[in-house]
């Protein structure tokens, strides 16, 4: 359909030569930023690994008691990747961003979802730095959420007002506490971080491996292609829940391992998308002309192929991420979870007390539900916004 000539109106139309560094010597600010930030991260990692004694806090030197884990490094890398490959390109292409935004804005549930997810992301990032880790405190067990009450017999010490044998909730524990006296608000906030880590980091791995395998398969063709795609077939035949369960059984469950398992065994669809897109695009004129003018295969892949497949990948990811979060919660619920304050674990923990302390399972459940719902709505809206063909096709 008629597209405005002056501004690219799709991801597909961006001239990624502007976005990518064009050579080794003249680095764009973005490439420089990327280089500097990853180097800093690497230096910090090496410093932590070689200089700082094993069980000491990473930032002891500046008096900040924070032990940076492998998971944190990886998460930082993921966030950098998201920043440089999603946020920066959008910022550099204001017209395009505007166009997407206008399309996206019309979808109200998706706007709400985006708001909720951004809030979850930022609270999940900042919250744990401010709030203390949820701790056992038996005297504070079964405190009801604010504005609700529980029979006095259920609690040991009621932090709030007691009337008619009922203990009332207070703002000290707005969401109440668990049977172990953990503050549910803290659990929710920490759980946000866990969920975001699981979702985003697994998605990062999926994107990297999926794009790699997809392009390699498409460009090698022949046996390599056949082998890789057959492998994808098999991987996708294997029931993923069972696979995750067996792997956790064999290797035990840490959050990093969960993320690795989800990431390493879920890239099948992404690879398929990239491959079919690659095969299709190589037939198209601009790739042919890029080849004719002597562009190297690698350059073509980087400048045309990966961005061209971006919308399929993003849509696929927006459905994968909630499933990762759900898987993590389910595993935690079953008792295979990592030792982190997660929503799933709290749901499982509160199960036995549901008859009188309804909030323990319910509140994290609601958060889990809304997060996943928001991702689904967002994914649906992205599908609509990124694929204008989908609705123009039906007009012809």
């Amino acid at each position, binding site marked *: 359909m008629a597209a405005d000539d002056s501004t690219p109106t799709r991801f597909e139309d961006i001239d990624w030569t502007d976005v990518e560094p064009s050579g080794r010597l003249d680095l764009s600010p973005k490439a420089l930023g990327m280089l500097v930030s990853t180097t800093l991260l690497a230096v910090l990692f090496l410093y932590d690994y070689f200089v700082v004694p094993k069980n000491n806090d990473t930032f002891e030197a500046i008096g900040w008691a924070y032990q940076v884990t492998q998971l944190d490094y990886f998460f930082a890398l993921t966030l950098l990747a998201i920043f440089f490959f999603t946020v920066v390109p959008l910022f550099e292409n204001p017209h395009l961003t505007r166009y997407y935004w206008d399309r996206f804005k019309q979808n109200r549930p998706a706007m709400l979802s985006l708001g909720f997810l951004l809030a979850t992301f930022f609270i999940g990032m900042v919250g744990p730095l401010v709030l203390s880790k949820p701790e056992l405190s038996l005297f504070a067990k079964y405190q009801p959420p604010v504005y609700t009450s529980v029979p006095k017999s259920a609690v040991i010490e009621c932090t709030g007002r007691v009337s008619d044998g009922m203990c009332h909730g207070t703002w000290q524990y707005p969401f109440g506490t668990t049977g172990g006296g953990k503050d549910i608000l803290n659990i929710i906030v920490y759980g946000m971080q866990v969920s975001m880590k699981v979702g985003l980091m697994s998605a990062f791995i999926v994107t990297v491996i999926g794009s790699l395998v997809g392009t390699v398969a498409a460009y090698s063709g022949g046996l390599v292609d056949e082998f890789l795609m057959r492998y994808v077939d098999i991987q996708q035949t*294997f029931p993923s829940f069972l696979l995750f369960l*067996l792997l956790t*059984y064999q290797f035990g469950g840490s959050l990093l391992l969960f993320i690795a398992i989800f990431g390493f065994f879920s890239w099948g669809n992404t690879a398929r998308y990239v491959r079919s897109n690659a095969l299709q695009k190589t037939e198209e004129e601009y790739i042919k002309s890029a080849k004719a003018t002597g562009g190297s295969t690698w350059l073509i892949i980087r400048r045309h192929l990966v961005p061209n497949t971006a919308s399929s990948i993003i849509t696929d990811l927006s459905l994968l991420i909630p499933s990762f979060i759900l898987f993590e919660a389910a595993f935690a619920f079953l008792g295979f979870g990592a030792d982190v304050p997660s929503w799933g674990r709290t749901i499982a923990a509160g199960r036995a007390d549901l008859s009188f302390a309804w909030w323990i*399972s319910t509140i994290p459940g609601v958060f889990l539900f809304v997060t996943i719902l928001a991702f*689904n709505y967002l994914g649906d809206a992205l599908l609509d916004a990124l694929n204008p063909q989908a609705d123009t096709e039906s007009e012809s």
Partner: protein
Amino acid sequence: MWAVVVTFIIVSLTWALLRFTPDRDIIQAGQAAAQAGQNATAEQERLRELRGLNEPLWVQYGSYMENVFTLDWGFSESRSQPVTEAVWTSLYYTVQYSVPWTILTLFFGTAAGLYSTAHQYSWKDNLMTFLAFFGFSIPNFWFGIILLLVFGVVLGWVPITYQTDVGVFTWANVKQLILPVFVLVTGSVGGIQRVARNESAEYLNTDFVKTARAKGANSQRILTRHILRPASVPMSTTYVGTLLALFTGSSVLVETVFSIPGLGRLLLQGLTSQDTPLVLGTSFVFIFLTIIGNLLQDIVYTLLDPRIDYGDR
């Protein structure tokens, strides 16, 4: 043919996974022996000998494969019964809720999808979309717990615990299965609805639908005959995939929540009591079900689309 190859490869991979990762039993036996003041390495060695782990790899692999396909799946320590027997018993309970689950999901999912297609982009479609998203966003296990609390504990309409001694076709059984089936259907019907909607919407603008309209067909007939039939070809593929993907996870979680002694719980029991033969046995059942599902999908495909010959595949 491909299905046979896949089965073979997956079963082999499962073997490799368990064979080349440290065996917890042996490590534990070693630790136990060390605590008891015995020689840990000797004890571990004895156990390896006993399990045939000292034989050449291909011999181990050969006997493993033979056992798998002759249904000699070993003895479950935690259940004190042969694994196949345990699997059979629990399959009985799993089938009782999976069959109605599958049927209801396919029926309601397709119906809702076609309804959405018929009312594309109207509030009815949006409502269906919301219900679909609601369904697959709500965590199965949590939803089950809440429903059990409301209808079992508070209202007392359904039993809280699962009774194994009631007949399959009794009212009591219906009552205790109604919630698990409901939870499972809510979880899967949305996925089916989306697929049905998207696939059938693709056919809404085809020439043959226009032909049907020009012939004087009403919209209901167009949907159920002229759109559903061709759409069912791609739909069947995604249906099988969606249901199979949900099957393992859902059965484990829902059986846990509703304390149904089915396959999912058996798998879980195997995992928690580190009963490797049991874990393997139940995994095989899930794997075989998946492969049979995929095979079935290929057959359905050829049945639904007259353009595909059996010979083509």
